[in-house]
């Protein structure tokens, strides 16, 4: 089924990934703590550029120049992934932890058949011979619902549709039954009807193999349906974490509230769509204090000064529910009411 309260499968502590560019140091991930339990689906939500993808790439240590992981530990199956050699990491990728990406067609190498590309996973990790690996690949294609897998295996990526290509990616990712799958916006680039099919496939396979999933998306509806727990990211930090129902029923962080409020609801008459005023901060030149402060209406309403001076920690507000906001701090620093705004 889903979660159990045992030791987490993946435990990210204090992850910091910075990009050292000509224009300055971009602090894409600036102190992220996350954990995923065996078999659970963790939703990672946020706007574009908030650091969700960089976080997942950091887990697999696939961050390239000019980016670098500057701090943090990622504990997986008893080992700190940040301390492993490149050779050891490559044993883990595709094998114990897999990843699928947003653009499935361009994630496949255009000059090799899809059969070859799937078989490659078996050849590299399990040392299978070409014929055997190919047979496994065909079986996988059948498993993910591709019709006529024997001949499809000889196809080239450009001959597939987006949905088919994503199925192929899923097949490759789950080939060796990894314990963790990172799905970075897996359905964003697909048509709406296909989106549902792909999500069903992911959930179905996840149930079958008891794979934990980090589901990254900016689509709240998707997260609400699929995730067990949710973490909300903003400007490189986690600002709220909660079980999914709790988050949607009682969002505490002003940003989360804004996000949820901005999703239009069918049937409800609205003259204007709700938006969060302002824009995402420049990650090179971050303001001191809470990163959301410039856009936070709650701060203005409660006339808080501490928000622009000091950054809050992730504070517990309920069982398994934590928020990074001064509104919920135990000792009010200046005039601020307790409880929710």
């Amino acid at each position, binding site marked *: 089924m889903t979660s159990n309260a045992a030791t987490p499968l993946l435990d990210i502590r204090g992850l910091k990934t910075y990009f050292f560019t000509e224009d300055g140091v971009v602090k894409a991930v600036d102190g992220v703590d996350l954990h995923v339990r065996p078999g659970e689906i963790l939703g990672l939500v946020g706007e574009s550029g908030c650091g969700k993808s960089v976080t997942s790439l950091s887990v697999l240590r696939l961050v390239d120049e000019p980016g670098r992981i500057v701090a943090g530990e990622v504990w997986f199956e008893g080992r700190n992934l940040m301390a492993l050699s490149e050779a050891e990491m490559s044993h883990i990728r595709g094998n114990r932890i897999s990843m699928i990406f947003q653009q499935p067609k361009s994630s496949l190498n255009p000059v090799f058949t899809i059969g070859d590309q799937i078989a490659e996973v078996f050849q590299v990790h399990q040392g299978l011979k070409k014929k055997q690996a190919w047979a496994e690949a065909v079986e996988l294609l059948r498993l993910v619902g591709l019709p006529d897998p024997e001949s499809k295996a000889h196809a080239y990526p450009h001959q597939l549709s987006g949905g088919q290509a994503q199925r192929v990616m899923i097949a490759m990712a789950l080939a060796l039954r990894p314990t963790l799958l990172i799905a970075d916006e897996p359905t964003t680039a697909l048509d709406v009807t296909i989106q549902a099919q792909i999500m069903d496939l992911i959930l179905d396979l996840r149930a079958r193999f008891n794979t934990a999933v980090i589901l990254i998306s900016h689509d709240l509806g998707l997260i609400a349906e699929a995730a067990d727990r949710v973490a909300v990211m903003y400007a490189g930090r986690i600002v709220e974490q909660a079980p999914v129902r709790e988050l949607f029923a009682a969002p505490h962080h002003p940003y989360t509230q804004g996000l949820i409020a901005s999703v239009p609801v069918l049937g409800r008459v609205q003259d204007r769509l709700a938006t969060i005023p302002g824009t995402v901060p*420049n990650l090179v030149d971050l303001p001191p204090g809470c990163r959301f402060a410039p856009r936070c209406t709650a701060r203005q309403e409660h006339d808080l000064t501490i928000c622009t001076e000091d950054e809050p920690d992730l504070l517990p507000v309920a069982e398994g529910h934590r928020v990074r906001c001064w509104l919920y701090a135990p000792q009010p620093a200046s005039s601020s009411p307790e409880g929710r705004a």
Partner: protein
Amino acid sequence: MTTTPSAPETDIRPVSLWRITWRRLLRQRSAQVGGAILLALVFIAVFAPVLAPYDPLEVLIGKEDVRKREAPCIHLLGCPPEKPQHIMGIDGNFRDVFSRVLYGTRVSLFVGFTTVTFAIVAGTLLGAISGYAGGWVDNVIMRLMDVLMAFPSLLLAIAIVAVLGRGLQNALLAIAIVSTPVYARVVRASVLSLKEREFVQASRALGASHAHILLRRILPNALPPLIVQGTLGVASAILDAAALSFLGLGAQPPTPEWGTMLGTERNQVFTAPHLVFFPGLAIMITVLAFNLLGDGLRDALDPRLKS
């Protein structure tokens, strides 16, 4: 404490493409180096009479005690002060090599710019007509360009010079003719890609003539690749002109052209290497400058790097 959210400052003043390009260009290392060398070369070309210790055509026999093809004499490096200084030595006709190399800058820069200008003008005309008119006109012109490009450029240039006769002018014409197809293709490609766009149809609806559309709307878009290609074209034009002169088909002695200097003395390379080394080095530095500049321009104009 203000209540308005502090959105990042947006500069609404439109910055033209040229200014952006110029600024990007200045940041490119290759453009910096290339531009610096080019400035130095232009300086040398302009001030050659001042910089050169001797007249490039002056035969020194009888005026100084020098031997034919004498090795360089540099006072700073130990050559006795009584001997007249010739930094790059003396050539086979008792002339000062250094002065000739300096004056050669003029010839080479002239060669580069005139050939490319001619080729760009001719190529633009052909390419624009070809691309815009389409149909059989396009076909004929492009076949002609294909035929021209089917010949290795130097060989074709040699053949043309053979027809027209030796000499620097004819060599320039030959090189210009041989270079034209490249520019024709560049312009044609730009024209083709823009011909079917809405703003062309809109202009037609407003009554603009074909010529007007071509000149004011379409061709300006062909400028960036033309500029890049042209700069690189100067580099290869200088190389080709030097090659023709080397073979005796271009600038004739006693004109101080680097290729000619190399050509006349090539058989003496083992006894008088300085006669070969310095002119060739000059060619290389000059061509390198234009290549670097062209590369820098290409990177600066790369639409993908637009921020």
